[in-house]
């Protein structure tokens, strides 16, 4: 059992001025300070939750992803080499969890138990002030993304929904830059083919 009593407070009246950096929080968390973990969570969870929800098209499932992400992260904090880069590290874990979710959906679908309801979730997240053409694009693309392979879908979504650079996508997906480009291109081709079918 970790001894909470010996850990200095991170925030509050007794703490000297500055907000602790991510690196400091990581060091403290590695030492068993659960409040440091909580602060890491508070700092990054909302971003990860938003990203996971957009990638998955399911807000409820996104919560599970955030839960899994931090469980993994807290367990593997010792494996984080660049302590200042905790945000990117957490994001890569979350992307990996999302990938696993996609695979799980395929598995469940393979058993004949899949549900189409999930894939309508993306449309439900569209902001009220979104322009009509953006709204139409998102509604059109959501079911088509669902038919793509998990890798292509993730790569495309990170690029076009999250706006990540190719380098970031490669790092997040744990693949080479060429592989990331290839996956995005394949996804774009698949969408283009479908679009041609609509235009004809």
């Amino acid at each position, binding site marked *: 059992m970790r001894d909470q009593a010996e850990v200095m407070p991170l925030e509050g009246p007794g703490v000297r001025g500055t907000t602790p950096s991510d690196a400091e929080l990581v060091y403290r968390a590695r030492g068993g300070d659960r409040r440091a973990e*909580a602060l890491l*969570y*508070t700092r990054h*969870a*909302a971003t990860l*939750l*938003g*990203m996971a*929800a*957009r990638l998955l098209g399911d*807000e*409820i*499932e*996104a*919560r*599970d992803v*955030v*839960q899994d992400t*931090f*469980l993994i992260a*807290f*367990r593997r904090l010792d494996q984080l080499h660049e302590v200042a880069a905790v945000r990117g590290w957490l994001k890569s874990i979350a992307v990996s969890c999302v990938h*696993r979710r996609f*695979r*799980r959906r395929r*598995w*469940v*679908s*393979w*058993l*004949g*138990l*899949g*549900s189409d*309801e*999930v894939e309508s979730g*993306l449309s439900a*997240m*569209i*902001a009220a002030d*979104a*322009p009509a053409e*953006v*709204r139409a*694009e*998102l509604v059109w*693309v959501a079911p088509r993304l669902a038919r793509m392979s998990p890798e292509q879908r993730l790569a495309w979504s990170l690029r*076009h*929904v*999250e*706006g990540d650079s190719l380098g970031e996508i490669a790092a997040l997906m744990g693949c080479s830059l060429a592989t990331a480009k290839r996956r995005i291109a394949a996804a774009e081709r698949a969408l283009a083919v479908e679009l041609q079918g609509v235009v004809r």
Partner: protein
Amino acid sequence: MSRPTLGSWLRPRTGEAELAEIYGRIEARRDRVGRPRVVVVALALGLAVGLALVWGGRRPGETSLAAHDRVFAPPPDTVVPVLVALDDGSHLVVLPGARLELDGPDRVRLVRGRVAFAITHPRPTPFVVDAGATSVVVLGTRFAVERRVDDMVEVAVDEGRVQVLQDGAEVAQQTARQVRTWPPTAMWAGTSGGADDATSAETARREGSAGSDDPARVVDRGASRNAVAAARVDRAVVGGGRGASRRGPGSAGAPPDSARESSSEAPDDAGGSAVGEAAVPVGTSTDAVAVGFAAADLARQDGRPAEAARILQRLLVDYRADSRAGMVAFALARVRLESLQQPAEAAVALEDALRLGVPAALAESVRARLVEAYVAVGDTTRARDVARDYLKYHPRGRRVEEIRRWAR
């Protein structure tokens, strides 16, 4: 000016309440990670036992069916599969009558029976299934392996490609939608022993008059969302609509004469010695309701109740005629009531459970929870009616005193 990303127009709810709830779940799960998880779902051994297994708070490693999470062997006289979730995201479904032993993180030994595998990729080292002299080596795909009492081994590939070894030497690369039956050792190729044990899949091949290169044998079921329904259709196609079917796990009856005559003709494009081959889907011997239950319970135990509810809801829609539909409805109601705090939806599921039929031992619990659900949504009239039913049907029920309050 560059165009804003699509994501900037997607605004999921990420409020404090959601974040606090997630953190609470993280805290609750901190000490429960790191081992292969075993979920045993009981359905047919007796519903009381079933409920204890499904909802009785079992945790990994506590099941009597597994020893130290390394041996998985559901008894043959049940329809209950064991779903094993490995840390790398792979899933194994150990079907009744099978015995599977984990030899390491990437290696398992199939002692008997049928196991379906969904192995994640990419992976640094191949995943190996040893079944006697036959080994199946994969880098990530979905397939099933069945080892019969006579040591014949059926390998059914649903997606991707697997490498089949016999006595340590590669004999074939099996690809998607191929089912082949391998003799106990490579020496058995084409012998009468192999012929006697040819599978009904082989019968199907014969009756369909389809060789290994015949594209007509390959049934595309990618569009199907219902594996069982697809399986039925596929079997009809493969078997020419004359009743050809695969045997279930562990069944080793004599094949029809046609199969016996033809087993040595089975082609092998990779130089292997398979004695039977057909395009039969992997999932045909899988009990979808049982596996669905297992998947739902895995989700529930992992703190993903929404996913559990989704699976159960789907089961309820697709298998409403199944004798276990009432159980499914009850399980759904419990998830909605206890994990998702959705009493209104739970009430609907509980009413459904009563309509579909549940055993008497369970009916008491269903009615008690129905009272709870109606109370929670503020429908005191309906709560009173159900409470009166409870007292009428279960006068000596465990919750009589508590329920009596609402019957007034």
